[in-house]
């Protein structure tokens, strides 16, 4: 398990849970960051922040310090686990 902000462009991961609370958590949940959802890291902005992602079918961007609150795991790992 790692933070979404630690992933590199091109990684494919899966959401495990969200750290954080209030509006932040609420909004991310609603945008589809629920446990088990696949996330693909497309690219970081030219100044390394924010980061562009595909969550489910939506393409969104998230600030790096916010991506810290998203705990993910590699997809391959989850397949092995199953």
């Amino acid at each position: 398990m790692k933070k979404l902000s630690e992933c590199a462009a091109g990684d494919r991961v899966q959401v495990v849970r969200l750290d954080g609370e209030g509006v932040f958590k609420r909004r991310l949940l609603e945008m589809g960051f629920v446990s088990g959802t696949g996330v693909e890291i497309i690219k970081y902005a030219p100044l390394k922040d924010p980061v562009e992602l595909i969550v489910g079918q939506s393409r969104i961007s998230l600030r790096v310090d916010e991506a810290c609150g998203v705990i993910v795991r590699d997809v391959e790992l989850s397949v092995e686990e199953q």
Partner: protein
Amino acid sequence: MEHGNNETGTASADGFARKIIRVALAGNPNSGKTSLFNCLTGASQKVGNWSGVTVDIVEGSLRSGSCQLLITDLPGTYSLSTCSADEQVARQFITEKNPDVVVNVIDATNLERHLYLTVQLLELGIRPVLALNMWDEVMQKGISIDCKRLSELLGLPVVKTNSRSNLGMKDLTDAIIEHASRKETSHLFSVNYPQELESVIKSLAQMISQANPDVKNARYDAVQLFESDKEVARKINEAPQGREIIEQCGKYIAEIEKKLGDTPESFIVEARYGYISGISRETVNLTKVDRVQVSDKIDTVLTHRFWAYPVFIVFMWLLFQATFKLGEIPMGWIGILFGWLGDVASSHLPESVFRDLLVDGIIAGVGGVIVFLPNILILFLGISIMEDTGYMARAAFIMDKMMHRIGLHGKSFIPMLMGLGCSVPAIMAARTLESPKDRIKTILLTPLVSCSARLPVFVLFAGALFPKHAGNVVFLFQVLFGFGAFILMGLLFKHTFFKKTDDYPFVMELPPYRLPTLRSILIHMWHKTEHYLKKMGGVVLVFSVVLWWAGAYPNNPEIDKKYEDKIAAAEADMSIDSTTKVSVVAVLQKEYQAEKMSQTYIGRVGKFLEPLVTPFGTDWRGAVSLVTGFVAKEVVVSSMGVLYAVGEGEAENSDGLRDVIRSNFTPLSGFAFMLFVLLYTPCVVALITAVRELGNWKWSVFSVCYQLCLAWTAATVVYQIGRIFIR
């Protein structure tokens, strides 16, 4: 906005009785909801407003057979969980105004995320008509959606639409009319939550309905409480036994968190998505999936590590030039038109107070409002194009890091940049920001960027007091100090008033690039302009008339008489030759103007304020000029021309005025004066625009006060410290 009761009524505008159906369009941002709305209602739209918040609700109507559809376009929202003003408005509209039919507009290429709102609507007891929009992209991407099955599973009418090609508009209207005539089944929809959660939801729902048997949907309220919904919590709290229910809910939340390792809201949202993915599995089939889309190709340049910025700068340069340089042309026409109107009125009306009011107050005031229209139209044309194509989101994406340093959002860049031209359209451009906090911060900071009307003041002072470095000094004030103040105050706000971190996360959608339709861009542009005219126009006009009145009154016949006599005496004086006579009369004329101005209400206010301006080395004449600067910053120069020109001979041309400035200001006091001009409220139109756009009187008062305080403090500190070094 008020349509009276929720009964369906009849309209008979053209003599035919029609059944009125009230329709609300709900959907995510970027679902194409607004363009669908434009397709349905055409030009029959008007921008409404919702109880003071800066959320626009647009209404339009459509006739179909014997029915009249009154359609309301709700703000685009991802959910109905009242975190933002938009969501609150959308939910309140649906629950309190009880529209006959809710149409849920869905981007069919991203079905799952968009169905989230649908599930929330269903839980709320609303049975919407689903409009699967962007059907052309569904076909292109090779996605197949079984609409019949989707309709069966959800028990809702489903219509394929495409607002770009008008596809499905007739089907949608028919579905709306049919849905409206159908008697609602009182079936309550609910998602199945994990068992542990289910049992506590049931027990809380029971508590709620026992405490208040009138509650229609106790289960919904219970779920909302578990999701920490503030609106529902407030409502429950006011009802009998509210405190106990909320307390019990808190205990349950802690219990669940202990047992399942996460808050109930996570499981609730997860369960909704689980339900949706079940539906999606049965109805959606991705036959061929194009990984590399056109959007990605465009993004390889537009958000490229290196190329992103040059391209962005070019776009911004174009936007700026178009708004202000191209805008100058129609602005000139407007100036000529209103000048001509004023001349016509003056020449056809007898000299009277009414004529002065009409010409100098009303015509000039209306002209002062209209003159900004070209700027606003062009700027919003540009912004609409940027938003509708999807570039706005990319611009925010590449600029966010920099803007976030000073506590702003990537999108705040556009208002900041436009501030260089004129604060009025710049403040309006802050509407593109979704979070109210970002919007407030941007509106507060934008006027600090030096607008072009401040340039004449800087040019005059720099030319007079720093002739060798005039260009550099002007650049210093116009560009460096303006942005410097923007950044410094941004940092200050970030660490003081906006310190709390319950901020919106920067979850910004990057929609695929789309070719916008001309129609939707034009409608979008018109709405903003209409908004400006309606909201600002009246107030600006009133203020212009008041300022004109304060600058022209009270009339003092004694002064008029005194100077008339003096001038007559000079003209009759035989001891001086005719050339000297002309200059003596000119001097007297100027003295007359200056004394007249100092006698007016504005003059008196200026004189009264003299103790406030002495700390930064200016006298009452400077104070009066600064007060007149509220009309527009360039007026400061003309007021100074009148006030300081006394007895100085030829001062009409700028050389003369420069000499006058030189003899009345030291470089230091001039510098402090320029600093004050840079930082205080740009003008009355900008002030009113900011007040209206902030939509909250506390922030409005703050925005006025802080700018004056900042200007005064900066000017005084510079002057007083400077005096220690420069003797």
